[in-house]
C-alpha cells in the first residue's frame, strides 16, 4: 500500500482499520508497523474525529416501543396465517386454477341439466309440422278481419 492510498482511506474511513475495506487492512497494518511519523500523526488526527463522532450516541429503544412494534407483528402475522388456513380450507374449485375449471364444469353441468328439464317438460309434444301452420288461424289469417271489405 502506498502512503497516498493509506491517507485516502484514513480520510474516508477513519482511524479504525476495522472499518477499512477488508482487502486492504493487512497492507495498512504492515505499513503502520514500519512507523512512518506522518502517517501515525494523520491517524491520530483521524482518531480525534472518530472520538467526537462516537460521542453522538442514540438512546436505547424503550420497552414500550419494542412492545408496540412486536405487537404489530402479532396482529399481522396471525392474519397471514389465518389467510393461509382459510385458503387450505376452501373447496378445491375456489383455488386459482381449480376455480376456473370448477366454474367451467359447473356451467357445463348447468347447461346439461337445463336441457334435460326442457326436454322432460315438453314430453312428446314436438313442434307442429310445417303443413299444420296453414290449418291454424292466426290473428292475421282471419278473413273477416280483412280490412279490404270495410
Amino acid at each position, binding site marked *: 500500500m502506498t502512503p497516498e492510498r493509506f491517507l485516502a482511506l484514513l480520510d474516508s474511513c477513519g482511524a479504525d482499520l476495522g472499518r477499512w475495506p477488508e482487502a486492504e487492512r493487512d497492507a495498512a497494518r504492515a505499513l503502520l508497523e514500519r512507523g512512518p511519523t506522518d502517517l501515525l500523526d494523520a491517524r491520530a488526527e483521524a482518531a480525534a474525529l472518530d472520538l467526537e463522532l462516537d460521542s453522538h450516541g442514540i*438512546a436505547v429503544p424503550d420497552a414500550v416501543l419494542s412492545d408496540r*412494534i*412486536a405487537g404489530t407483528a402479532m396482529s399481522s402475522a396471525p392474519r397471514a396465517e389465518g389467510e393461509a388456513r382459510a385458503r387450505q380450507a376452501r373447496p378445491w374449485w375456489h383455488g386459482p386454477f381449480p376455480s376456473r375449471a370448477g366454474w367451467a364444469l359447473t356451467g357445463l353441468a348447468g347447461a346439461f341439466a337445463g336441457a334435460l328439464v326442457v326436454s322432460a317438460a315438453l314430453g312428446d309434444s314436438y313442434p307442429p309440422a310445417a303443413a299444420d301452420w296453414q290449418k291454424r288461424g292466426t290473428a292475421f289469417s282471419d278473413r273477416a278481419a280483412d280490412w279490404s271489405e270495410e
Partner: protein
Amino acid sequence: MNDDDPDAELLARVGRGEPRAVREMVERKLGRLLSLAERLLGRRSEAEEVAQEVFVRLWKQAPTWQPGRARFDTWLHRVALNLCYDRLRRRRDEAADDAVAEAEADPAGAPDALLEARQRGRRVARALAELPQRQREALVLQYYQQLSNSEAAELMGIGIEALESLLVRARRSLREQLVVEPRRHDDA
C-alpha cells in the same frame, strides 16, 4: 438458504410466525434502525415512526422472503433509507437547525460529566445535520451503521469511488467543525 446471511434463520422463524422470533428480531434490529433514522432525520420521534413502518414491512415480507437475493440487513437498510428520503424530501426547505431542535432537555442535577457528554453529542448531531444530505448518508451508513464501502455504495446507488469521495468531504467538514475549530477556540 443463504449461508452468508446471519439473519436468514431468524427471518425464516419470523416468517413462520414464531412469537419468540418476532421479539428477537425487534431486539436485534430496532436499535440499528433507530440509529440510522435518527442520525439521518435528526428527530427521535420521526425515527421511531420510520422504524415502526420498516417492521410492518418486515412482517409482511418475512413469509415470502427469498434467501440469496440480497442480505436481509441490506434490504432493511434500503427500506429504512427510502422512508427517510421521503421524509427529508417533504421537509427539504426546513432549516438544518430545526432538525436538532427536539433534543431532550438536560435533567436537572445531572453530573457534569454527563452534561458534557450530552453537549458533545448534540454538537455532533448539529454538525451532521448541517452536512449535505448525500455526505450525511454516506457517513451514517459507512461509519455509524458499519456497512462495508461496497454495501453503502450499493444502497446509495453509486460507485465505491463516489462513496469514498463523499466520505472524505464529510469527514473534512466535520473535522473542521468538531476538532480544529474547538482547538482554535481553546488556543485563543
